[in-house]
């Protein structure tokens, strides 16, 4: 990149960026609870019954002895952790800006509030959609397209194919909003761009910290 178009952007401190408030007690479970589980895992006695029990409701066809050691982790009855906007944010927050030594999140190019995830009812049939509105650092930022492309590539690599990704320039933040939007969401152009070495190497840089 030649000399930056926007030399001094306002920068968010990493600590200010939105994070997932981890409520699940599993992670914060005290070492002692873990210990208790491990010790219980050592019991040989009463295996016999336990195995009988496990045999039926056993998706991963637990073999003998297995289930006790699984005890600690067997979470396959927990609720699903759906892909939400925070997860999307985390995926793209660390993308480097092509001209500043900063991430898109630090530059507030991507913001949690501008990410909308619409989940299809049935993962196997229904389509889901991610809608991201990006805010270029300045209204004539010639790199808006590149940034958008970087985001799209990152997401196409990380999201299951049931997702349709729409990347738009946030209203009124760029002179040629529509052009950029049209390009960013033209499947064919994106695909072609991803086979262009120069572009690809720039994107590689952008995704270096992902």
């Amino acid at each position: 990149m030649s000399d930056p178009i926007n030399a001094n952007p306002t920068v968010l401190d990493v600590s200010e960026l939105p994070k997932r408030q981890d409520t699940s007690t599993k992670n914060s479970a005290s070492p002692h609870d873990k210990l208790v589980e491990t010790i219980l895992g050592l019991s040989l006695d009463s295996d016999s019954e336990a195995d009988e029990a496990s045999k039926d409701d056993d998706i991963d066809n637990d073999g003998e002895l297995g289930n006790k050691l699984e005890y600690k982790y067997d979470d396959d009855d927990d609720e699903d952790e759906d892909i939400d906007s925070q997860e999307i944010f985390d995926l793209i927050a660390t993308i480097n800006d092509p001209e500043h030594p900063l991430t898109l999140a630090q530059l507030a190019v991507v913001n949690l509030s501008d990410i909308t995830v619409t989940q299809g009812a049935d993962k196997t049939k229904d389509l889901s959609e991610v809608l991201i509105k990006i805010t270029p650092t300045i209204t004539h930022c010639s790199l808006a397209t590149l940034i958008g492309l970087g985001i799209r590539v990152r997401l196409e690599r990380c999201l299951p194919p049931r997702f349709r990704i729409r990347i738009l320039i946030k209203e009124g933040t760029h002179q040629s909003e529509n052009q950029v939007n049209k390009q960013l969401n033209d499947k064919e152009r994106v695909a072609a761009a991803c086979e262009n070495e120069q572009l690809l190497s720039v994107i590689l840089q952008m995704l270096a910290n992902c």
Partner: protein
Amino acid sequence: MNLIASIAAHKDKCWSVASHQSLPLLATSSTDKTSKIYKLLAKQHFPQVAVLEDAHKRSIRSVAFQPPVNGLQTGEPVDLPVVANGSFDLNISVWGIDEPEELDELESDKLDDSDDSNVQAVKDILCSSNNEWMLMALIEGHENEVKAVAWNHTGQYLASCSRDKTVWIWETDPQTLDEFECVAVFNDHDQDVKHVSWCDNRNMLALSSYDDTIRVYVKEDGEDDWDCATILNGHTGTVWCSQFEPSQRSDTDKIRLVSCSDDLSVRIWSSSAAGSSSSAPATAATAERLPSSIKHTHDDQIWELETILPAVHQYSIYSVAWSPYSGRIVSSGADGKIVVYKQDSSDDRQWTIEQVKENGHGINEINCVTWSILDDGTTEVIVSAGDDGMVNIWNSS
């Protein structure tokens, strides 16, 4: 609509699929830089006939069969199958086979057996996987990715369009394919030209573009230059694909064109092709004798939006096809739906949705649909190509 077969054709996105007009052949192309040819057997088993690879350095975006010029009757020279590939690496490759010896053997022991069986035999030979497919030509010229290629009805012109906003017409000898000479370049579009398709009985072609328009070009027989017959405005998004109504369908003079777009609409345009322009090749001779003054008859072609087909799709519609057999239209796109539309017998401006197949390729996008006939010559099928690299074959009747 039920799935007859699902061919795991490619390791990556399958961009396009085409079927041969007279032979039970299917050609596919993909991001994995290969193009493949399959045989459509009614016994619902679809053997791979050939893999066309190592010609392109990037995705092969589009594939097209050269239409047959002569019949398949022995005696006269038999049309050998020919395929053209258009790739993001800016090049176009043309593939074909040598005439198989088996044909001569047919000649010899032809005796009194009926043509049908004979034709069948020829077909079998031409579709056999023993034939070695060879790269006949590699055509260079475009400055950006080639987005689509298409042959005209005589197999003498190959049209290619690209992100460089231009469309090139390459002329060749349909039999020998010896050289491809660029005879015309259209650069009237302000943006990528996404797709090109020919009318099946005249030198008229439709160009669909990223600039939301479709342009129709015509070259009158005997003329050298191509003229822009019309610009179809109306779509409010990229026009991904368009196709003329197959000629054997339209008893009228009317030429019709179906197009699909990013704006989620499928539209039918028609030209009340007044005057001689509508005349089939037979009458072309008359046109020949007319003074040139009144010749550019396509100038008074009036194109208009005939109808908009009932909306079904939720995401970009990438592909639309008009069946030469049943006259139905099929469309498909990013939402993975395959939609079949039927024209009312009463009012030809009235179309109804005959059937909708959800998740044609699971949750993946569908890039291309086309109509085809199995080798039993009767079963009409829809063939779809998806991002999952699969090629699905659907019984649509």
